[in-house]
């Protein structure tokens, strides 16, 4: 008899659990109709953001459990790092990232993403500052991606630029950091352009050497230059330097060596 009552009780508990879980599991189509009314600005911001992609929806960052923890979950770095692996490594190595790692258990993620509410900025603190769902709207114009230069409209925003940084740092520090970083990045681009000019000369000689040189030059753009940009943006010295500039130097001289040591070139008078 005891066993029967026990199993009925356990069965009921499980059933209630399942029903509750089902009630809070959300479907992709569930979010927008409701939140468009409740938070129209937020949805509009997301719609113009770079996260408005076919394979992404609210659940990608907020999870599927509509139980009051959705905002908290999306504020944690783990919500971003699953997709942004390379970005996360430059951040993790930075002082901000180190503090975030050490303080993860003590930071209160229920707080809004502003006013220095977190001991160190997390991914969302800067890229979704004050909950702005137009991802990176405030920090993007600081260091635009390659081939994706800041528009004049972005330039107008320089007054408001780097708002997240200013919650802790002086405007002069922020401005100096990014001006210097812009220069550091531009110097990286100079190396890539110098390499491209050499690759063009190699292309006149033979296809094999050209292919080899192009592969190296691609690595300069896709890896090393990207590291400099991420290193500046995330304040990671290692990415700016060892994974950035000396790596660019090495590949630039390797490309030059292909041309300098080329047999066709060597037989010239």
């Amino acid at each position, binding site marked *: 008899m005891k066993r029967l009552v026990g199993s009925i009780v356990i069965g009921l508990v499980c059933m209630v659990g399942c029903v509750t879980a089902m009630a809070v599991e959300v479907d992709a189509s569930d979010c927008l109709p409701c939140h468009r009314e409740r938070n129209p600005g937020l949805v509009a911001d997301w719609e113009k953001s770079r996260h408005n992609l076919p394979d992404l929806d609210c659940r990608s960052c907020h999870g599927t459990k509509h139980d009051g923890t959705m905002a908290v979950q999306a504020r944690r770095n783990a919500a971003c790092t699953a997709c942004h692996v390379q970005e996360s490594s430059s951040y993790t*190595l*930075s*002082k901000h990232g*180190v*503090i975030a*790692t*050490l303080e993860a*258990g003590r930071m209160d993620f229920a707080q809004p993403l502003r*006013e*220095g*509410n977190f*001991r160190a900025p997390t991914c969302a603190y800067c890229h979704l500052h004050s909950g702005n769902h137009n991802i990176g709207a405030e920090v993007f114009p600081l260091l635009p991606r390659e081939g994706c230069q800041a528009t004049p409209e972005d330039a107008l925003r320089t007054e408001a630029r780097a708002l997240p940084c*200013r*919650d*802790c*740092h*002086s405007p*002069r*520090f922020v401005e*100096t*950091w990014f*001006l*210097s970083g812009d*220069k*550091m990045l531009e*110097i990286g681009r*100079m*190396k890539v*352009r*110098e390499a491209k*000019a*050499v690759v063009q000369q190699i292309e006149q000689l033979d296809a094999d050497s050209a292919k080899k040189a192009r592969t190296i030059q691609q690595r300069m753009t896709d890896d090393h230059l990207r590291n400099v940009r991420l*290193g500046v943006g995330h*304040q*990671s*010295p*290692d990415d*700016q*330097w*060892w*994974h*950035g*500039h*000396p790596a660019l*130097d*090495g590949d*630039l*001289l*390797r490309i*030059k*060596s292909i*041309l*300098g*040591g080329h*047999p066709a*070139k*060597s*037989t*010239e*008078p």
Partner: protein
Amino acid sequence: MRITHLQAVIWLLFWPWLAWSGLPEGAQGVGENAEHWQPDAMHEYWDPATYHRPETERMVGVYTGEECVECHAGVTPGIVKEWRSSRHAQAASPVSCPACHGGDHQKLTFPTPQTCGACHPQRLAQMEEEKKYGFPSHALAMERAVDSKHFADKPKAEVAACLQCHSVATKCDSCHTRHRFDPAEARRPEACQTCHSGPPHPDDLAYFSSPHGQLYQKEGATWDWSKPLRKGNYQTPTCAYCHMKDGNHQVADKAVWKFGIREVNPKTAENEIKRKRWRETCADCHPEETARNFFRDLDAERQATWKQLYGVERLLKSLRSDGLLRPSAADRPSYPMDWLARWLPRERIGFYEGQASAFYNVSAIERDYFDLWYFTNLGAYKGMAHGAKEMAHRFHKQLDGQARSIAQTAEALRKTGKAGQQIDLKPLWLEGEYTRFNRDHN
């Protein structure tokens, strides 16, 4: 007084010479090559004692700590929250903003180690003591950076990254991040990771993949980090536990193989003393014999690796003797301060010739050796020294592969010989967008 023609000519030539030499305006650097470079704007934050300019455009007046906090809680709320949770704020008589920054808003300063040392004299003295052990050292890190030839040579915005880590000598918040300055934070290995990572010093990789680091990663988050770094307080050592035993801010008195870019003799009297200090540290948990064996293995690994490195170095030097390094040093840009090298150009191979700065504008085979010596060698060393045997093994395999590839390239260069050397490489190596910019911006 009569002015001769010769005096007049000298006088007339003096001004163009002065303008050409550019000395009076350019000389804002510090250190050995001071007259050859001008700092980047960020330098004031990395070396505030030398370069900081007070903010004079915004606020006027002299303020008390309470007034600073009242205003900055609105302007920069993050740092005020930070400071409020620090021991500085919670002390019976709080150490507030003016104690470190001064009260006059037109003359604000950034704290240097000397500022912190006013209240923490023992820690400052320990850090200063480190200087007697030479490089590498936290206390001498800024000199190491700005005195490097490549630092003086390259555009300052490019090498600004160097200063972020090397500023460990010029301010204390590299490890004790502002504005909480919590010793508990600095005790954890992640505190070292921002600088002790990457190809030439993968200390993070080595520690985290070692048995010590594995245990830390599994359980470290739950430990009480307010305890001092002493025997029995932690189940596994962290970076600071071994390198800064009992919180000693002098980190150099046990360093034998040091940075790892030159061979040392581990059996000198001085190194024997250092080794004894190491064994005493290990003895907190391990029998002395274990530590002895550990260091015997490390020395054996290092000596074998150096044999291999010298072999590759000899190969490169023989190519140099036979004039097979192309471009030759004469065909490459020279360092601005190196007038001797302009007259007697010579390729720099190995530590003692200064190859640590020669990782750009060199021939591909020299750079291949640099990568082998400065990256792969150091990966093997750091793995071995931190007890990460698998990592050391992996880097050794890579090292063997790179050494073979350099030998093959050398062979090919010898085959081509001087036959393939008729063209002038100067235009290729002395011109180009970055190369030109580099030449004009020290």
